[in-house]
């Protein structure tokens, strides 16, 4: 992976370096696609609000290998001069360079933005932005370790919603999100990176279980409409479970403080 040459703002390595090539790559992939839990089970979630003391609100989420930190700053003044009647939600996603199998050079790239867009979509409808004219709510997300982009989007959306609640920002409901992949004829919930790569299609669903509505659907790959609906229903069921985890962790955090 090439490092941007002559970037004087960072310590630079050699001009070019490459990920190591392993002699037994294929075996490894086969090993990784093996799933240790049932198709309908998601990875265990560890969710901790309020770890980042500098932020107005924050949350750290860990689902097996995936590790994501999220902080909310604001509502604070929007820097541009144009008047906006509603508040602005700004989501920024950053991968740490060591978060993926291949090193990611520390430059903002396409994936960061598309992740941010989908997380924005998942949480924007839950926030009462009309209460914050001329203000911006910044949601910053750092992906420390990534095991499947679908899972990352879902977990990051959950973390963002938790952090928003932790920041005391008024919302209509907590957002929870879950992903699913079609592997063969089965639906595997919360797929890992290897599973998602082996699948023919994936679905990410974000919803507010307390209000029984859907804030985001993100489907890619190919599948029949029936299959997509089945995926969404399964995800929705899990979202209800995730919702109680989020509520629980927020409650514990409040009583502990």
């Amino acid at each position, binding site marked *: 992976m090439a490092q941007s040459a002559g970037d004087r*703002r960072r*310590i630079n*390595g*050699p001009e070019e370096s490459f*990920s190591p090539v392993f002699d037994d790559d294929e075996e490894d992939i086969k090993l990784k696609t093996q799933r240790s839990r049932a198709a309908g089970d998601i990875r265990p979630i560890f969710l901790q609000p309020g770890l980042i003391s500098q932020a107005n609100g924050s949350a750290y989420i860990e689902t097996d290998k995936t590790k994501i930190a999220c902080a909310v700053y604001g509502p604070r003044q929007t820097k541009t001069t144009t008047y906006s009647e509603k508040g602005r939600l700004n989501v920024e996603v950053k991968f740490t*360079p*060591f978060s993926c*199998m291949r090193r990611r050079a520390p430059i903002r790239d396409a994936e960061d933005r598309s992740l941010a867009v989908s997380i924005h979509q998942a949480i924007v409808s839950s926030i009462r932005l009309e209460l914050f004219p001329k203000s911006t709510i910044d949601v*910053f997300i750092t992906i420390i370790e990534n095991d499947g982009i679908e899972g990352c989007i879902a977990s990051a959306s959950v973390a963002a919603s938790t952090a928003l609640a932790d920041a005391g920002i008024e919302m209509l409901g907590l957002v929870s999100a879950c992903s699913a992949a079609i592997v063969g004829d089965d639906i595997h919930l919360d797929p890992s990176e290897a599973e998602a790569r082996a699948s023919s299609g994936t679905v990410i669903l974000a919803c507010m279980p307390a209000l029984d509505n859907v804030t985001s659907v993100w489907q890619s790959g190919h599948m029949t409409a029936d299959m997509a609906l089945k995926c969404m229903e399964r995800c929705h069921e899990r979202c209800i479970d995730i919702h109680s985890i989020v509520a629980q962790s927020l409650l514990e955090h409040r009583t502990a403080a």
Partner: protein
Amino acid sequence: MSSSSITKPSAADDTLRAQIFQRLHPRVYLERFTAEKFRPDGRTFDEWRKVSVNVGSISTADGSALVRMGDTTVVCGVKAEVAEPDLDLPEQGFLVPNLDLPAICSPKFKPGPPTEEAQVLSDRLNEALVTSGVLSLSSLCIHPGKAVWTLYVDSTCINYDGNAFDATLLAMLAALRNTTLPKATYDEETGRTTCSRKNRSPLQLERHFASTSFGVLETSHVLSDPTAFEEPLMDVALTVIVDDHGQLISTNESGAGISQETLLQCISRAKERASQLQRLL
């Protein structure tokens, strides 16, 4: 505020007033504490914050560490890649340390390219790792002149509550200690390097050391391990790096001058601290 109508301000009111006072007159706020020989977070001057180190939790990195120093949290991951060595140094690998201070860690940073602070810290960290000779670069050689390891030591600050340098250096050293490299072989015919997934060996670190930072206020008050609130108010910032045999590796001082006495005092406390940190690793 008419005090006659309010008989007893509640505790919440007091906290809020203290917060406003802290915001508006930070220096006076701090001085009121130091006059009582205490610091805003309840520490005495020479007290350090609690440190915890957690290594090897990131599977996508070849070595990793998470360090919490008080509230300051730094994650460091080492990624090893294969590169061609420099022509004039055919047997030397590369060690590339960087610190990122993203917008997530503090309200004073904005998204975008590295801030000046991050650049300065990255430079100082690079200096510290290079001058101390923590790792012999020739041990990173796979095949002279053809292939060497490049170790990207990337750190990200998740929560910035002062003294990022100590926390990051500790995280980088812990991550390097935790790093294992796959056994690599260079094939002269194809010019490619292949690695074995099963056969991994740890890095050979040459030296163990730690850094300790102090802030000096009005030449007499020496505050160890300053927080994000204290740091900008300090007259002098001092960092001392010593190794596990008590040998001084480097000192870095910025701001107004300090007396020799203070410096010696700091160095001896740094030695004490270094051995404490070594025990953690």
